[in-house]
């Protein structure tokens, strides 16, 4: 399969996970890799289960869906309960501890980070929790470069929100670094 990472970003509709998936896939292309992004969503614009899937690799990507993610972001308890068991052996779950309290035992790594809380308290807008999450996922997995991620982010956000998004990304990055030094 070559060098290939499958990511699933999951949570509730309205958390901006599909946009996060698009930015992640875009960043991979800016890094010169191949990537693909697909989504699954309900009829609701807000609420309901939502997930974005991204596959990043160097080769041709045939099947565009993710069955066993190497990287699983869960931003709601419901998403965690639903998807945790799909994790590929040796994969990593990044859980937003703001909303995910209970995590099952998995054959892999678990990072619990207060993603939404950080967005709310330190940026003042929970809306950017998806960007905080992106920063954390990128830092933990190394699947995209920070430069490419920043570029992709700036290209896909509304004008005038550059500053808070930049800050959110930085916070996610830091959160992951702290997490990896023992907060887990």
């Amino acid at each position, binding site marked *: 399969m070559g060098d290939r990472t499958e990511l699933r970003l999951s949570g509730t509709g309205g958390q901006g996970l599909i946009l996060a998936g698009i930015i992640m*896939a875009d960043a991979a*292309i800016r890094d*010169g890799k191949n990537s*693909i992004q697909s989504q699954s969503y*309900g*009829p609701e614009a807000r609420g309901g289960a939502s997930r974005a899937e991204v596959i990043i690799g160097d080769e041709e*990507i*045939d*099947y*565009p869906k993710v069955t066993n993610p190497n990287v699983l972001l869960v931003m709601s308890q419901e998403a965690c309960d639903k998807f945790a068991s799909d994790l590929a052996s040796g994969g990593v779950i990044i859980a937003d501890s703001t909303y995910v309290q209970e995590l099952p035992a998995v054959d892999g790594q678990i990072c619990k980070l207060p993603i939404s809380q950080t967005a709310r308290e330190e940026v003042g807008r929970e809306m950017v929790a998806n960007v905080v999450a992106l920063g954390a996922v990128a830092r933990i997995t190394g699947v995209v470069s920070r430069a490419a991620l920043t570029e992709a982010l700036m290209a896909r956000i509304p004008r005038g929100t550059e500053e808070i998004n930049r800050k959110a990304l930085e916070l996610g990055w830091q959160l992951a670094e702290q997490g990896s030094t023992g907060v887990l």
Partner: protein
Amino acid sequence: MSRVVELARLMQGNEAAAEGALAAGVRFFAGYPITPSTELAEIMAERLPRLGGKFIQMEDEMASMAAIIGASLAGVKSLTATSGPGFSLMQENIGFAAMAEVPCVIVNVQRSGPSTGMPTAPAQGDVMQARWGTHGDHPVIALCPSSVREAYDLAVRSVNLAEKYRMPVILLMDEVIGHLRERVVLPSPDEIEIVNRRETQEAPADYYAYRADETGVPPMANFGTGYRYHVTGLAHDETGNPTNDPDKAESLLLRLHDKLGRNLEDILIEDSRSLDDAEVVVLAYGATARPARQAVKEARRQNIKAGLYRPLTLWPFPTASVDRLARQARTIIVPEMNLGQYRIEVERTVRGRASVVGVNRVNGELIAPGEILQAILEVVK
């Protein structure tokens, strides 16, 4: 950064179809919002006025289809986009476009049905509707992309074929490809072949609106250019005027079919993978071709002589190619997100010379590579 990396971009299937249509010269879009095709309308609403073109959101899909026929008769390349329920509503006017020979393109991003079904979930349940959705024997061209880049290319091609053969062309996408975002490098404008309708060279007094030459396609005269003639969905003679003459009515219908029949080489396109020595052939189209390709690769790794045949032109049916497969393969596996709509056509052509096996899903989910691989393993057991 190399040039290719620089030009590479993440693009959605629906966006690619819209951009392809624009690149082919579409300057009129009429549509009605429906999941999962709405992005096409949104992109057109934003892009067309910038190109001097027109977008209109009509009151329903019947009106949308009618409006693009009107605009096309007035000389503007025209497009609409919809999904299942809207596609059903368009059928009568699609028949009109076939009968009156009006170039136009309909993008149908298939979703789970029947009826309202699962609006956000994919399906390939409109394959037969694309062929026989409108009443009466009518010609149709339907193209089916399996990737974002192909959505772009086939959108260009749909517009070209519509113009060349003066008929409605259906770009039959599905929700997976429509909403999929992947890396694409688009062709530069000078790499894109653009076909425009052939306009008549006759003087107005000598012009017969429906007299075909050796191509089978009558040269066209756009409304407002000095050629006054009649366009109708009634059976008509070479002037365009209605007729009840059985011979004239029949010769019209035969010509409508013949203009495809005599140009199949130009219309049919296909793709294949590891087909040369294949004993088991997976025949797949649209999103389903992607897990099919993965399954074939995996089978090859297991030293199974499997191959992929992928029709990009679904209609007219690629009879000659499937006939070849029937002679070559022991088994043809047809995975589809429907209950076997295309498989029936494959069986009809294979006529028992190979076994034909379906892998079918109607649960709103894309078939997984493992399911197709399983089917391959079973037939070589």
